[in-house]
């Protein structure tokens, strides 16, 4: 599942994912929507969550922290995909157990390397 507000970024990330063979991609436009889908909609959890940080309504970091607090999403693999290279953000994300902290745009090689590793 991809949490991204910008439509161009959504387009580009989905395109890269498809290239890597991932076709079933759900999208949330802001932090609130992401939490709704993952925690209360009752839909099955995605295999991977690709999370932007600067999101409208609820910031990505808050979304991440909330997911880690909830039993249901505690172990959900989260990949951070952002434009910000803030070391504080990076550290926080790794503490919360992010599998990677990547700067946009998502590179196909990078994605493939990560997928093969996990």
């Amino acid at each position, binding site marked *: 599942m991809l949490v991204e*507000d*910008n*439509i*161009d*970024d959504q*387009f*580009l990330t989905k*395109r*890269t994912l498809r290239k890597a063979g991932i076709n079933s991609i759900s999208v949330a*436009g*802001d932090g609130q929507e992401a939490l709704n889908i993952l925690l209360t909609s009752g839909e099955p959890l995605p295999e991977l969550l690709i999370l932007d940080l*600067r999101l*409208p309504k609820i910031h990505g970091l808050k979304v991440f922290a909330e997911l880690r607090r909830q039993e249901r999403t505690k172990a959900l693999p989260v990949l951070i995909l*952002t*434009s*910000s*290279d*803030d070391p504080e953000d990076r550290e926080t994300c790794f503490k919360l157990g992010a599998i990677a902290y990547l*700067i*946009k*745009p*998502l590179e196909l090689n990078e994605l493939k390397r990560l997928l093969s590793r996990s």
Partner: protein
Amino acid sequence: MRKAAIMSTLNLRTKILLIVLGISIAAVAAMVMIVNFLIEPRLEEKLQKRGASIAHAISTQCINPILTRNLLQLDLFFHEFDEAEKDVKYLFVLAPDGSVTAHSFGREFPVDLKTLSFKLSPEGFGIARIRDAGRDIIDISVPLLEGNLGRLHVGMAAASIKSDVNEILESFGGIVILFALSSLLILYFMEKWVIKPILEIKAVSVRVGNGELGERVTVRSGDEIGVLADEFNRMIDSFKKSREVIFHEKKLLARSEERFRTIIEMSPISMAIISMDGTIDYINRRTVETFGYLPEDIPDMARMYVVAFPDEAYRSVAMAQYVDLVEKAIAGNREIERSEYRVTCKDGTIKTMVIFGVPVGDKVFLMFEDITTRKLAEEEIVRLNSNLEGLVAQRTEELSRINRDLASFCYAISHELRAPVGRIKGLSQALQEEWAENPAAAEYCAQRIEVASSELQQVINSVLQLSRLSQSSFVPQLLNLSVLVREIAGSLLSETPDRQVDIIIADDITARGDSSLMRLCLENLLGNAMKYTVHQPSPRIEFGRDGASGAFFIRDNGIGFDMAHADHLFEPFIRLHLEEEYSGSGIGLATVQRIIERHSGKIWAESSPGHGAAFHFTLAPSYGVIHDV
């Protein structure tokens, strides 16, 4: 005593006249007394004795004719004798039977002589005085032949005594006249030599006493009076000279006092002269300037204490201190020690003064030194020293906060720059890949590249604008915000000619601010209002000033926002709405906030979703604190 008192008030001339007159009267009186009481009885006695001797002499010659009865002859004899002796008035013999034997009267004998009573003198003759009209006679009688023949009477003319007395008196009169003349002579010379000069000296001395120092006594003589006059003239001369000296010295003194007074009056130091009884004799110009009190405001120390030390507790402390120092100075004959007083001026300001001075005779000469500024500076130094550490800590904290802010701002900017750059990079790759097989997708990518590029441009422009804020000069001036808002609204509306927005602008709202910064600020706020009312069927934007708080506001009826996010409203690159829907750099409100802060003002927002938003801001009237951007 009273007599002496009266005499002493009479003038000299009258006194001398009175004395001379008195002496003359006394002399005349004495002469009359002498004549009356000494000379006249003596003459009378002499006349009696002569009468007696005549009577004795004749009596012997009478006996025979009587015995012989030759009475006619006797009459004749008597008559002849009477004729011969001028002072003998009559002669007669009175017989024991009371008849007249013989007489010198001629035809008629005065009957009263027959009964004449007489007294006997020690020598044995009888004496009687006949005094009536036309007669003044001393009758001397002797017995004839033991009285057998009766008595012989001789009448002596007493009038002769009178004429003798008159003679003596006449001779005395001459003496009196002589005496009077000599008295007058003495008076004349006394007048000339003594009285007149003395009176002149007196008159001159009176005139000199009245200040006519040109007067001189004109007496010229070698005697004591002359010496007195000369000495008197000399005395006037030396008096005049010493008076001139005194006058000159007085003038010099007055001039030096005038100079002294001018020096004190013009002195740049506040000064006062105070009498021992507390009267404030004088305060100089500088004192009036320093304290504001005029001489009539503080006529004495009692009044001065009340106005200069209105606080009673401090007044008693200040009074005690001053009185103690003045007493010490007088006792030790030295200066009044310097000490500090907090003096309340006429306008109510309190000045710290050092008061010192010196007692001079029965006055106290005071000087006042204004150390208010120095005192404040000293207090400021003490305060600053004590605050310095705290200030350093505070500044360090501020600086590190600014550094942190700056760092997070840099990351925010880097994100904002990276986001479109990343998109452009991804889209460019996609464009390359889709170019040959899928031209429609490639065209989509190209369009999106353009959008991302203009986004990037907008971000760069905003960042540049924001960075210029801190560098631009800040020139506060009186601005008509109403006019400014009208201009901006006009240009915003002209950019979107298809929109109909109701813009209401209150008239004549003025404030002090920097013209270009305020324009930028209002452009952002109005731009936001325009942006967020885009979906409103009848958009309305208002600019005005709140009557109660005095804050300016820009209000719209657009989509508004949730107040839960109001905290992040002014942070850069925070968007409350989807970027696609409402385009913007994300730093507009951050810019607005910095501009308002630079004007020492505050900005806050009120809103609720769907009910529009209102941005309120204030501008401080002064710009003492200018924040770094």
